[in-house]
């Protein structure tokens, strides 16, 4: 039995909107094991992004317990959470979120710099080659296509050799062909390197390519029956 990378018990995230409390993630129990490729699916506002943010140590937990690699992070302070974001968990965003003033290669080097990793240049070049962008290293993000930008974002995430890769709608801004290419990279990373990947997506064609799919609605994980209905609807 492999180690759980993520273990959540009664995980809850509440946002306050004036006097109203909104349960973005509501009492979720979840376990994701090492080497799994999991997709999170559900309609807009179902809590996919919030759940990813919590698992990525980007946001604080309101109630419940969350463990990353066996360490409880639900009560951790910001300074402690940085350690998880630095080389253990990597994040890929829908809007790529590259630093516009830095070249593709520098964007990759940046994550290595923050993770206090040496040999930034050599390692970054290798990763850029691996995502098929060895010829675009000196281009600024604005000089790259959407698919290329997302591949730079993947390279940035992979550069620190994370144990968990989280991707929030990574194909949301891409055409079908580019989206499939990105997903193929994820599958390859999972199958060949054994990297644990959790992807939030709207796209059932892509989402169902994962080894496990979790369906969310109103901040809760829904049953397989309900999820079949959901899939039929979209």
């Amino acid at each position, binding site marked *: 039995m492999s180690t759980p990378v993520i273990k959540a018990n009664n995980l809850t995230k509440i946002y306050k909107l004036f006097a109203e409390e909104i349960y973005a993630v509501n009492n979720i129990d979840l376990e994701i094991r090492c080497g799994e490729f999991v997709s999170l699916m559900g309609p807009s506002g179902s809590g996919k992004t919030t759940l990813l943010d919590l698992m990525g140590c*980007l946001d604080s937990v309101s109630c419940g317990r969350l463990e990353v690699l066996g360490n409880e992070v639900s009560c951790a302070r910001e300074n402690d959470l940085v350690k998880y*974001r*630095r080389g253990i968990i*990597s*994040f890929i*965003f829908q809007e790529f979120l590259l630093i516009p003033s830095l070249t593709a290669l520098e964007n990759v080097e940046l994550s290595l710099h*923050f993770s206090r990793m040496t040999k930034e240049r050599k390692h970054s070049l290798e990763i850029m080659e691996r995502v098929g962008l060895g010829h675009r290293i000196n281009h600024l993000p604005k000089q790259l296509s959407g698919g290329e930008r997302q591949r730079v974002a993947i390279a940035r995430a992979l550069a620190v050799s994370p144990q968990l890769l989280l991707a929030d709608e990574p194909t949301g801004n891409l055409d079908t062909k580019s989206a499939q290419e990105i997903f193929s990279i994820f599958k390859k990373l999972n199958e060949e390197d054994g990297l644990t990947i959790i992807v939030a997506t709207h796209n059932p064609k892509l989402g169902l390519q994962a080894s496990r799919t979790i369906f969310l609605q109103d901040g809760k994980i829904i049953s397989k029956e309900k999820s079949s209905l959901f899939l039929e609807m979209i």
Partner: protein
Amino acid sequence: MKSIAIAFKNLQRKKIRSFLTVGGVGVAVAVLVSLMGFDEGYQRGLRSDIDKMGFQVLITAKGCPYEAATLMLKGGGGLRYMDQEVYSKIINDPRVAAITPQLVHTVYDPDKNNGQGGLALYMGIHRSFLDLKPWIKFKSGNWFSQDDAEEVIMGYEAAEFEQRSIGDKIFIPGIEKILTVAGIFERTGTQDDGLIFLPLVTAQNIFGLPDQLTGIGIKLKEISQIAGFEEDLYDEPGIQVISMAEVRGTIFNLISSAKVMTNSIAIIAIFVAVIGVVNTILMSVFERTKEIGVMKAIGASRFDIFRIIWIETTLICVWGGIMGNLFAIIAARLVEHMLRGILPYAPSGHLVVITGGLLLSSFMGAIIMGLVAGIYPALRASSMRPIEAIRRGE
């Protein structure tokens, strides 16, 4: 990828804004360096002028000591007169190493100041004048042929200005007297350069002031004897004794209030520059909220973000410091020219003296300014929570 490279690239994104902020710091530093340089130059010049007068003590007719101090700097005496008998009494004092009597007189010259008219200053001197100022050399000619010769010796600038050479005739308006140029002094860098000297006896005769003096310059054998010397002459009627140390102190006191004013201007300029820098960096931080969130999401700690923003601010101030120093060096002579036009009395020599120490301290000051100005924007940026920053920036 180093923090300094990230900070540098960030500043390059808004070139005009960065340049203007650097310019603001540069102007503040230039103002500071120029004002401090002026302070240094003025004090040096004044000290040099006083030291080059050659005497430690000046005896003048009783009057306002401030007026006497000012007049001394403009030519070595006041326009109040004392009896020459005083000179005869002091000359035999064993504490005196050298002593020289002087008679200064002004004459209205209608041709002065390009025909607008003005006062011409003449100084009657004795041969002992050169004992107190041994550095004075003749560019051409010699000392007066006799003690009552109708001759003049011209200061370097006075001769240059009037295009005079040895043997030329000088006409003194009002008195209708013609004197011959017997000698021209080398440049001394003091007020003596602009004066016309004549024998003391001749001056007393042609200006109708027989046995009258305006000042007696004295150099003592021991500087420690000044206080006792002054004390002994205290009871002498109609005269006052002014030591050069007193004069220097008096003038420095007078200019110290002006110094407070100039320092205040420099502080205001720096304060405005600091606000400008804080404003620019804060604006930049707010514009990059999302990026800061992303940096935190990919592993940047609070300190990483703080350092990047702090470096940005410091870089602005470092460039501003360099620019300000260069600007101050280049504009120093222009500032000096302007100040000479404004100031009622400006000592000889460079009025704005920019030393290496001043440049270094102003540069260090600019760096400190950057470090201080960067604290608040850097704290704001570093305290952002990653996911909030990413969402707020959308």
